[in-house]
């Protein structure tokens, strides 16, 4: 389903705006910080909801890919991601924490799948014929990059939790259903 796993043009536009304002505010522009606060309140809930939704759909596609039509495997993986999501999000997570939780879960799932697929390819290919070194290098880069992103997502969630503790939040009203399968 092309497009279903991509952010809408509108969300991309808002993200570009948020990024530009964050950069200005970080550089000390007070007006930009005010505008950023307004924009975070006004548009980030929708973007967070959309991104979380995409994460869920992406996870579903990843689960379908690795389970390769085996219903038991599919159920087990869905249950595992559901548990992970609940454990990582904890009680009363903020929308931002929920988004980062989705990122951790999707990252974990992706690394598992990539490693699984590559292991299966090696088992098949090494016996049959020589695997090109450039191919092995490119595969390794993909896995390495996914692993790095996964670890970064865990660090980011921990960092956000640490920074959020004791600071008054910018109020956002986003509903993300944690229990949806």
């Amino acid at each position, binding site marked *: 389903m092309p497009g279903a796993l991509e*952010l809408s043009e509108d969300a991309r536009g808002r993200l570009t705006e948020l990024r530009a304002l964050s950069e200005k505010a970080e550089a000390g522009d007070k007006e930009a910080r005010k505008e950023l606060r307004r924009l975070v309140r006004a548009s980030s809930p929708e973007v967070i909801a959309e991104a979380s939704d995409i994460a869920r759909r992406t996870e579903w596609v990843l689960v379908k890919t690795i389970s390769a039509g085996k219903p038991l495997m599919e159920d087990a993986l869905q249950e595992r991601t559901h548990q992970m999501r609940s454990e990582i999000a904890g009680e009363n997570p903020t929308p931002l924490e929920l988004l980062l939780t989705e990122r951790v879960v999707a990252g974990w799932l992706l690394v598992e799948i990539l490693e699984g697929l590559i292991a299966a390819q090696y088992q098949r290919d090494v016996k049959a014929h020589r695997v090109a070194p450039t191919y092995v290098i490119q595969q390794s880069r993909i896995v390495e990059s996914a692993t790095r992103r996964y670890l970064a997502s865990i660090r980011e969630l921990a960092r956000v939790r640490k920074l959020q503790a004791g600071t008054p939040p910018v109020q956002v009203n986003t509903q993300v259903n944690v229990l949806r399968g």
Partner: protein
Amino acid sequence: MTLERRDGRLYYYRSVRDGERVRKVYVGSGEFARICSETDILRRTGRRAQRERERAELETLKGLVAPVEEFSEAAKVLVIAHLVARGHRKHKGEWRRARSA
């Protein structure tokens, strides 16, 4: 690789790279030339199919990575926007708590 026919007889040559230059190396003639030529064609076709398969498999992997990557980037932008909006700042690559907190 060339299979040449001269005076009704087959001659087979392989191209071998020698630095910048490509040399034509004589392999054999007659029936032997024909067998060598067909073996090379089969090997080349096999290698091409293998490269094609590898390219398709890499595309599959990239296709799985792309949505997670896009979503990750979006999450990163949102986190920074929230932190900066709350007054947090980055100092030497590390986020610091807002002074008012």
